[in-house]
């Protein structure tokens, strides 16, 4: 029998199994916490910081996706301070890459766009960096456009944890980090890639897409993961 923890989220008394994350517990009780790098079925890394919550007794905001529930924990999922940081994080993501929605294949089907609408981001207060980044179209069927990448690493994790190919990874540090295939080869030359296309399905922006894709067909189908994970669990 698993142990139960009792905690409070947004004034609501909640119980969750020990080891569950604050995000799991909140969602279980219909409390919406915005996420970007989290995806049901993949491990959590706390990379995007959008799910930051306030925990009483701790002055620092904590990412809900990698914070475990504790007995008597008091969590707030929304406050002026949290809202301020969420908007700032989104603005920084837009400023750091080249997110030109008007010429993006997933315009209108983009997680990053959606979240920015949620926080009412009508403009970005920071200077745009306009980094010079490549578009890797060496693969037969897929394109990796580094301009749109926010380094959430969903593609890296799905390639490793679900497909088991471990083709994709992150190289470099900080703002100079980028997604690489195999040992920094062009994607088309990466021999470990099985061309399964799972990375395309989980990408929250227009960074990964299929060649010849029309803008109208660009809706994402990240839900496939939950199905796959369930099937795998049942087989085990």
């Amino acid at each position, binding site marked *: 029998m698993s142990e139960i923890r009792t905690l409070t989220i947004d004034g609501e008394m909640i119980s969750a199994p020990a080891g569950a994350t604050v995000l799991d517990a909140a969602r279980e009780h219909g409390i919406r916490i915005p996420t970007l790098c989290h995806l049901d079925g993949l491990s959590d890394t706390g990379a995007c910081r959008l799910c930051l919550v306030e925990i009483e007794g701790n002055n620092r905001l904590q990412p809900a996706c990698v914070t475990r529930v504790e007995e008597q924990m008091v969590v707030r999922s929304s406050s002026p301070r949290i809202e301020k940081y969420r908007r700032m994080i989104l603005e920084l993501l*837009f400023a750091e890459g*080249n997110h*030109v*929605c*008007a*010429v*993006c294949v997933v*315009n*209108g089907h983009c997680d990053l*766009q959606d979240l*920015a*609408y*949620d926080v*009412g*981001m*009508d*403009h*970005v*207060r920071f*200077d*745009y960096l*306009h*980094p*010079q*980044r490549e578009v890797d179209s060496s693969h037969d069927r897929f394109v990796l456009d580094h301009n749109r990448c926010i380094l959430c690493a969903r593609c890296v994790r799905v390639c490793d944890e679900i497909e088991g190919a471990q083709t994709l990874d992150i190289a470099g540090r900080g703002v100079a980090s980028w997604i690489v295939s195999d040992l920094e080869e062009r994607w088309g030359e990466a021999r470990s890639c099985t061309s399964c296309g799972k990375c395309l399905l989980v990408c929250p922006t227009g960074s990964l897409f299929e060649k010849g894709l029309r803008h109208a067909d660009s809706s994402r189908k990240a839900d496939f993961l939950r199905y796959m994970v369930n099937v795998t669990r049942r087989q085990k």
Partner: protein
Amino acid sequence: MSTRKRFATIWLGGCTGCHMSFLDMDEKLLELPALADIVYSPLMDVKTFPREVDICLVEGAVNTESDLRMLRSVRESSVSLVSFGDCAVAGNITAMRNTGGKKAALQSGFGSMGEALAVGDDNPLPQLLAQASPLHQYVAVDYFLPGCPPSAELIWYVINELLHDRQPVLDREKLRYG
């Protein structure tokens, strides 16, 4: 003395698409002169930007030195300045040249003539700034109206609110980029 609002629009470094969407307001275009005097616009024959403007929509990014001069004079003369469209709000397509630099942009546009255009002080074209930038990097902006272009309905919503001294609010339902 008239209390009618004085309304203006202007384009800087953009494709004029936002103004085309403005024209798509159709019958609202007839309501607009009933609510305000249109004192300046690329769609009409006025040579200089007037003083004492209540509301000015500014399309396009700040791309050239002449854009910057124009924007500063618009700011000086206008009570409410609206960043009109993605280029004005975020740089958008106009700012895509920033990744490669000014020289590369001129060369891709003008070929071998690009080099001469980049350095000459005596050439007739407005000099490109080092980077194309959103308006708010240079002047205070009162309202942001993103979209590439913003829909005619949204443009009318913002104009109508401002003309009636109300604050336009772009919430989740109204915000659109691209």
